[in-house]
């Protein structure tokens, strides 16, 4: 068999690169098509996330008067919430979209010969575009309330990469499995909810009892989210050390996803 899909990772990336035009216009198209027939158009891209920021800020920090232990700033808790929620939003968007990405594009996969890994890549890029919109709003908000972390903001990038890698790897693996066993998709929907609540996003880690805190530490998303929170609340570099195991998890997830994909891509076409 000498068909493009079967020789080496380098080759894989080369084919993906040659389809960059398709990938970028797919992302563009998805972005445009979402609000194509609406009057306000792209404004909805901004309005939805803006609502989220406003709600969390107003409800938690103004109405409920929730305060972060140890930090005395009116918006500290809303910043804490946004730092976790916005990044988790991107993470969960990649995961939920990529678990059905092969099923949704069954028609294309069955009928055209193109690098199928384009599809999860498009999902990731789309999630990034959405993330970028809401994230810039968040940054504007930070500037507005005079809490912008300054240069420390660049620390977001490596953390973001770790988080995205974990999402791509897991997402692709689940996407492949979901073609053969639909239960995986349903199951993962439940898992994702638990995962959210087992990550200190809404609550601070210190609010947990001792035994639970130890458990939550094993969650690779805990150091990732904690890193964002440190950057935006404290305005300092995050703790790098706890991020290493998270990065290891991401690499393992990517290898797992790629392996599953390569071993079952052919069978997947027959199954769809």
């Amino acid at each position, binding site marked *: 068999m000498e068909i493009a899909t079967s020789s080496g990772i380098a080759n894989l990336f080369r084919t993906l690169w040659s389809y960059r035009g398709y990938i970028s216009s797919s992302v563009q198209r998805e972005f445009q098509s979402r609000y194509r027939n609406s009057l306000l158009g792209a404004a909805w891209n901004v309005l939805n996330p803006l609502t989220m920021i406003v709600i969390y800020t107003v409800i938690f920090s103004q109405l409920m008067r929730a305060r972060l232990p140890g930090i005395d700033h009116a918006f500290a808790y809303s910043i804490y919430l946004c730092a976790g929620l916005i990044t988790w939003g991107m993470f969960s968007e990649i995961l939920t979209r990529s678990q059905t990405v092969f099923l949704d594009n069954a028609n294309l996969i069955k009928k055209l*010969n193109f690098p199928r890994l384009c599809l999860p890549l498009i999902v990731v890029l789309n999630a990034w575009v959405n993330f970028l919109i809401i994230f810039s709003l968040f940054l504007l908000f930070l500037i507005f309330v005079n809490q912008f972390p300054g240069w420390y903001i660049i620390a977001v990038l490596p953390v973001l990469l770790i988080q995205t890698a974990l999402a791509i790897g897991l997402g692709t693996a689940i996407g492949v499995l979901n073609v053969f066993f639909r239960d995986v998709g349903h199951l993962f929907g439940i898992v994702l909810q638990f995962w959210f609540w087992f990550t200190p996003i809404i609550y601070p880690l210190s609010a947990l009892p001792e035994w639970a805190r130890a458990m939550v530490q094993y969650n690779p998303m805990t150091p990732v989210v904690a890193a964002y929170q440190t950057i935006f609340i404290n305005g300092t570099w995050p703790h790098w050390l706890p991020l290493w195991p998270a990065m290891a998890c991401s690499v393992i997830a990517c290898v797992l996803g790629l392996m599953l994909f390569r071993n079952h891509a052919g069978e997947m076409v*027959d199954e769809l």
Partner: protein
Amino acid sequence: MGTIRVHNLGKAYRQYSNRWARLAEWLSPTKKIRHVQRWVLHDINFEVNAGESIGIVGINGAGKSTLLKIITGTTQPTTGSLEIKGTVAALLELGMGFHPDFTGRQNVFMAGQLIGLTHNEIITLLPEIQAFAGIGDYFDQPLRIYSSGMQMRLAFSLATARRPDILIVDEALSVGDSFFKHKSFARIREFREQGTTLLIVSHDRNAIQTICDRAILLHGGSIVRQGPPEEVMDFYNALMAETELQTVRQITQRDGSVQTISGTGEAVIDSIDLLNSANAPVETVEVGAEVTFRVRVGIRQSVPRLALGYMIKDHLGQPIYGINTHRLGQALENLAAGEHIVYHIRFPVNLGKGTYSIALSLSCFDSHLDKNYEWRDRCLLFHVVNVRREDFVGCAWLNAKIDIERPGINSTLLDHSAK
């Protein structure tokens, strides 16, 4: 460039007895196989040289689509190998990757990139794509307001924008109106002349015989015959009527051509002759002559009903005229074993010059698919020559009479000059 080599290719789909069986197989540490393989293609061997045109025929479920999917690289074969040199374009599913909310132009970019064109290539090809599709101002309108024919035209225009080394065409190439159909076939022919290797799947005898150099007949997932299109199509035709392959046989005649004979054999054709107006056997006849086919039929076993059909085919094997005694209301009934029947089929040779063949069928009713006693292709060859008539082109002699009016000039003068 443009060659295909298929070696011992096979394709099987996995069938699991239930959903858990697959999981058990995946997780089993001993790699115990828990599926059965359902083979849809096996032992496929063929080669296509650069510039050749190959027709792939076969009944539904014979494995044609699967074979094409493997060649286009959509599906992978289970066994064997496939070697392709050159770029492949497939006209299997037109309009893949189109989005209804975007304009024709935007969709051309999108779907074009999906089939491997780069942005710059599309920009270069765009005027040609737009012109060939011929959809006018609709090109900049969203696709959802297109008629289905317009979408097909755009899709075809895009899929064939760049001449590929190998073009794969599915029979469902009824693209748009008849004008566009001609246009699209013309483009396929043009590609072929420029050296594109062609792979066509069709049930249409005409298409296969006019375009292809060779045909491959797939049946039950394997190649049962490959060779000259006419021979393969005759075999295919016979095969369709048979549940058992054995009764179809092909005989190579003295002149090297192949005669296909099939049928259950209750009634058989004993002889066929072509007679001129003086009742003498001939092989060559003049355009417009009155001739007779004399067909002798023997009844081997009693049959309730018998219809004789005949068909005149041109040198490409395309039917020129065919009819049977069922349609003429002359079918015979209650025939006993041992009877001999002689048919005289009289007609004027209103045909163009060339070589023609006769196919005969003996069946119970109209179609040989129903009850086929005997079907015999290429029973007889005859030549039509044009010695006495004015020279004309085409396969039908319509004996033109032309009246000409030219106002202002004396018509008798014109008559004179026309001669």
